[in-house]
């Protein structure tokens, strides 16, 4: 907070510094949040409901006041700045289009409240409506539009006044799957074309992975990890992130030794595995191993493999999913161990069949115990 003069040299447009928030004075909804968002970046706040992601967004928008800490936008503290002076465009979950105004009037609203000249308002509204391809519906009211169209109008309204920052609070939550995927691409394109800075809140990890430059995974009021989508998936730093992002197989065990970033883990059911030591206390500590389903191969009984980790498994079930198949195995006491197979490869597997699974130590991460 005191280094307000120095941060001018950083790239961060938005900075959360030691932000805490409590509603009841007993439980912190947001615990000591430090987060930098760079100009032009698309950052997603991802987490289960109640994880503090929406509260964080609301503090940034100005509808909630941090209990402690400070938020800076372009190096200006904004804790005591009312929402309408923050120059932030916001898209709400239920669009919040004004029902008594036409589409055109809705999009013009942020301009007219700023006293923009009439000719310029007309021009910019027309451009914004062209951008979302809804020029022909300019004189309709929101109630006459479909959910997807309403969402596009809400987007245009939040962008038309060129805000320094755009916030989106689960904007696609009310749309069906196909439309949601289409809108994800559309928002991503808009972001790239216009170079805007976006803070996006969602609980849908697929959405976060598709659109974001960086994702901040929230749980229990704490940012668990903030990283690029691929890093988040490939290199989760703790069990929560590993389980929250994508499919994950968990094996519990105890660390035997650590050597050059790798550790040998004795599984509770017997046998041992070599894994990357990512988040382990030291020898003797409990750990949860994380292996992605696509990093595992099934080895027929008796065949050999050059992969370092090999464990016996029993086939429980196979699931055909079109472009791929899943084998559900019982491995080291875990009855929901998933292995991703290429299409057709599941044909030879039957219930109760004994097989082996194998994976590289590099693809197995020893994390904090669950």
């Amino acid at each position, binding site marked *: 907070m005191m280094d307000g003069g120095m941060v001018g040299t950083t790239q961060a447009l938005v900075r959360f510094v030691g932000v805490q928030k409590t509603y009841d004075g007993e439980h912190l909804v947001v615990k000591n949040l430090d987060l930098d968002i760079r100009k032009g970046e698309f950052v997603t706040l991802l987490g289960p409901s109640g994880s503090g992601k929406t509260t964080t967004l609301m503090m940034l*928008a*100005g*509808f909630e006041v941090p209990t402690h800490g400070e938020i800076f936008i372009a190096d200006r503290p904004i804790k005591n700045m*009312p*929402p*309408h*002076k*923050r*120059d*932030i*465009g*916001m898209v*709400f979950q*239920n669009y*919040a*289009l*004004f*029902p*008594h105004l036409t589409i055109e009037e809705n999009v013009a*609203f*942020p301009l007219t*409240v*700023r006293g923009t000249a009439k000719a310029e308002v007309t021009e910019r509204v027309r451009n914004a409506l062209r951008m979302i391809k809804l020029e022909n519906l300019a004189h*309709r*009211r929101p*109630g*006459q*539009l*479909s959910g997807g169209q309403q969402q596009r109008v809400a987007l245009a*309204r*939040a962008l038309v*006044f060129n805000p320094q920052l755009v*916030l989106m609070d689960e904007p696609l939550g009310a749309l069906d799957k196909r439309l949601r995927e289409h809108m994800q691409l559309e928002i991503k394109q808009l972001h790239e074309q216009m170079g805007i800075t976006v803070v996006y809140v969602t609980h849908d990890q697929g959405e976060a992975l598709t659109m974001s430059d960086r994702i901040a995974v929230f749980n229990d009021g704490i940012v668990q990890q903030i990283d690029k989508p691929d890093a988040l998936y490939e290199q989760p730093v703790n069990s929560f992130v590993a389980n929250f992002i994508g499919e994950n197989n968990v094996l519990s065990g105890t660390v035997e030794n650590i050597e050059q970033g790798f550790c040998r883990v004795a599984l509770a059911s017997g046998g041992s595995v070599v894994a990357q030591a990512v988040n382990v206390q030291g020898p003797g500590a409990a750990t949860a191993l994380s292996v992605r389903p696509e990093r595992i191969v099934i080895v027929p009984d008796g065949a050999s493999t050059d992969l370092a980790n090999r464990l016996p498994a029993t086939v429980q079930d196979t699931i055909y999913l079109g472009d791929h198949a899943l084998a559900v195995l019982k491995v080291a006491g875990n009855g929901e161990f998933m292995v991703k197979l290429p299409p057709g490869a599941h044909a030879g597997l039957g219930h109760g069949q004994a097989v082996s699974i194998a994976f590289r130590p590099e693809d197995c991460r020893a994390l904090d115990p669950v």
Partner: protein
Amino acid sequence: MTAAFVAGADAPTEVPLKRRLKRAERARQFKALALVLPLLLFLLFTFLGPIAGMLWHSVDDWEVPKTLPHTVAALSDWNGKDLPDEKAFAALAGDLQAARAAGTVAIPSKRLNYVVNGFRSTLASTARNLKTVPEPGTAKDTLIAINPAWGDRATWAAIKGASGPLTSFYLLGALDLTRNLDGAIVAAPAEQAIYRDVFARTFTIGFGVTVLCLILGFPVAYLLANLPAGRSNLLMIFVLLPFWTSLLVRTCAWIVLLQSEGVVNDGLRWLGVIDEPLRLIYNRFGVYVAMTHVLLPFMILPLYSTMKAISPAYMRAAASLGASPVTAFRRIYLPQTLPGVGAGSLLVFILAIGYYITPALVGGAADQMISYFIAFYTTETVNWGLASALGAVLLLATLLLAVVYGKLVHGQQVTGGMKN
């Protein structure tokens, strides 16, 4: 195979399909009708029936045709310019004698007395003094001899005007209008022309009470709609509390509070604010206070239900788009409450212009509203015609308002969703 079958069956069965749909719908419609039938019958007998009766009374003119039938027949071809001919005088003499024998002279007297003051005594004295049927050809002279009023064209014009079966007399009267001797509509004499003033007063008080209710009710409704559920329920109980007390009790409570020795005056005098008691009741002020108090819930409830439906997201959206709280309220919140403002105002206004008890108890002579006069004519003078006509005018004003409101609300609403 299936597709071909459907396509083949489609075209020729288009009309029967509609018929089949109608048949299928009919059972549902009957069920719906059966559900509302008891209420419909109840309304028919207690609401529509009386209203139709009232409207009929306001134009019905039965007294003179029933009791003086021959006179009415004889006057049917009278030109109204000169005195009627001998035939009419003879018919009147006959009718009057028959009426006297039947004891029904009072019936046309009352009706005709509305038109010409003193007609009652003219008829009564004529009936009394007409001992026998006048000799043929002498009826005119006999009657004029008994009462010179029979030599006046206006007397006969009154009878002709009241000869039914329908009359505009009462409705015109309710609007301070009357017909002159030639049948043209003119303004009523000044001493009878009071109803326009009364209507104006009624609408002024109704409008004033509506505005007061809106000013007082809007913030309360806003608070109710935006408080957490627990506290808003408590506040709602306070809003509804007046409904648990009778109207009469509440009005009398205001008398206790506002009279010159009442709580308010005593309090102000004790505080030294005033020396002489203020006149707070039996005047327009008292009427406004008491009526606003009684009608306030009818404003708050529609406002509340409208405001409750306005998502707080709209105000947040407006703020995030750069609108200051005042701008957001004016441009986003207020317009969305307009349907509630309209509904509440219409409700309060319509209830207010029909108020009787409250102004009668806490108002002065110059604060009586139209209902007071309707009650006066039905209970005191038993002039059903004029009472009904006043009621009909009030009903018409109310209907007009409802239509205007309907148009306004319809204009507000979004018409038909078109999705693609």
